[in-house]
């Protein structure tokens, strides 16, 4: 006979921001289980109306992030064992700093709009008829760009950032990290507008360097360093303009 099935107590956010509340579920514990497995189990076996988002299940698409026991996590690659408190409880809530649509699904519109506002957009300088531009992989700008490039747009950093909660205009770590990788893209033709954008009201100078973003980024990127790069760039460009 199989060993008696163990259960975990899981509190899950239900409803929207204003009227929602935590709801308790008992979920069978497995030897190897991710937070996303727990959420899917609830939706498939306990309450089919639970709203949440995921796609790839392997840490590529960036759609499954939630607050797990108060910390932002990519749920498809977060093992229950790693985050379960001593009391054996799990609390799963929608990402911080974003409007909640329903249950665990947030509205990410503002997150993506801010990428555009921060000029995290490529401005091509060539057409399809030009030669492909060679970029030396060892060049210092390419090395800087590489360090910032593997972002999956999961908004974990955005949820971790207290400056985002304090200032709704702040573009946040992901958008500025993207802007920094483009500052280091020699093919890009929009640098002046980008420096203007990242030094505007919502820009890099809001960042307090508390590094919540770098602490939680699941891809181990360091948006704080990227933002520090932008700060340096805006300062040196000021002197360039003066001289």
């Amino acid at each position: 006979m199989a060993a008696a099935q163990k259960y975990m107590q899981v509190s899950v956010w239900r409803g929207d921001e204003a009227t929602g509340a935590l709801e308790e579920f008992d979920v069978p514990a497995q030897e190897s289980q991710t937070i996303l497995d727990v959420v899917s189990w609830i939706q498939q076996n306990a309450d089919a109306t639970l709203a949440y988002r995921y796609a790839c299940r392997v840490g590529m698409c960036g759609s499954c992030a939630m607050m797990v026991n108060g910390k932002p996590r990519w749920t498809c690659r977060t093992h229950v064992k790693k985050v379960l408190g001593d009391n054996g409880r799990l609390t799963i809530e929608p990402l911080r700093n974003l409007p909640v649509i329903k249950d665990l699904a947030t509205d990410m519109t503002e997150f993506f709009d801010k990428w555009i506002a921060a000029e995290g957009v490529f401005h091509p300088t060539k057409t399809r008829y030009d030669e492909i531009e060679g970029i030396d992989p060892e060049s210092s700008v390419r090395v800087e760009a590489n360090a910032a490039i593997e972002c999956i747009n999961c908004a974990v950093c955005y949820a971790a950032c207290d400056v985002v909660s304090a200032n709704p205009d702040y573009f946040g770590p992901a958008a500025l990290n993207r802007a920094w990788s483009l500052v280091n893209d020699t093919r890009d033709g929009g640098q002046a507008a980008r420096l203007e954008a990242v030094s505007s009201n919502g820009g890099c100078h809001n960042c307090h360097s508390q590094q919540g973003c770098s602490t939680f980024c699941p891809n181990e990127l360091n948006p704080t360093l990227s933002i520090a790069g932008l700060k340096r760039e805006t300062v040196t460009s000021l002197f360039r303009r003066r001289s």
Partner: protein
Amino acid sequence: MIRPHRAHPLWLAFLLHRISGLGLALFLPAHFYVLSLALTRPASLDGFLHWTENPLLKVSEFGLVFLLAVHMFGGLRLLALEFLPWSPRQKTFAAAAAVASAFIASIFFISAVA
């Protein structure tokens, strides 16, 4: 209680920097006021200096030196973080070096004033 998303050393560094700044902001007006007594009421200044010989105040001077050291190194840490091209590993070493030197410097400073 510190909320879970803030429970990491770099957030505590930020908190310490803020608190030491507030502490210094409260101390400085009092400090300047006492210094101004040298011009306006030298007699009460002497009385006050006499009062500061008391051991309790010597202990609180330690607190003051600590606030100053923490605030200065916290500020240098931020400047370095934002203006020098660190890699995370170098950053850890530099932080350790700064903490060690702050510690040694404060011990020397305290033994000098005490």
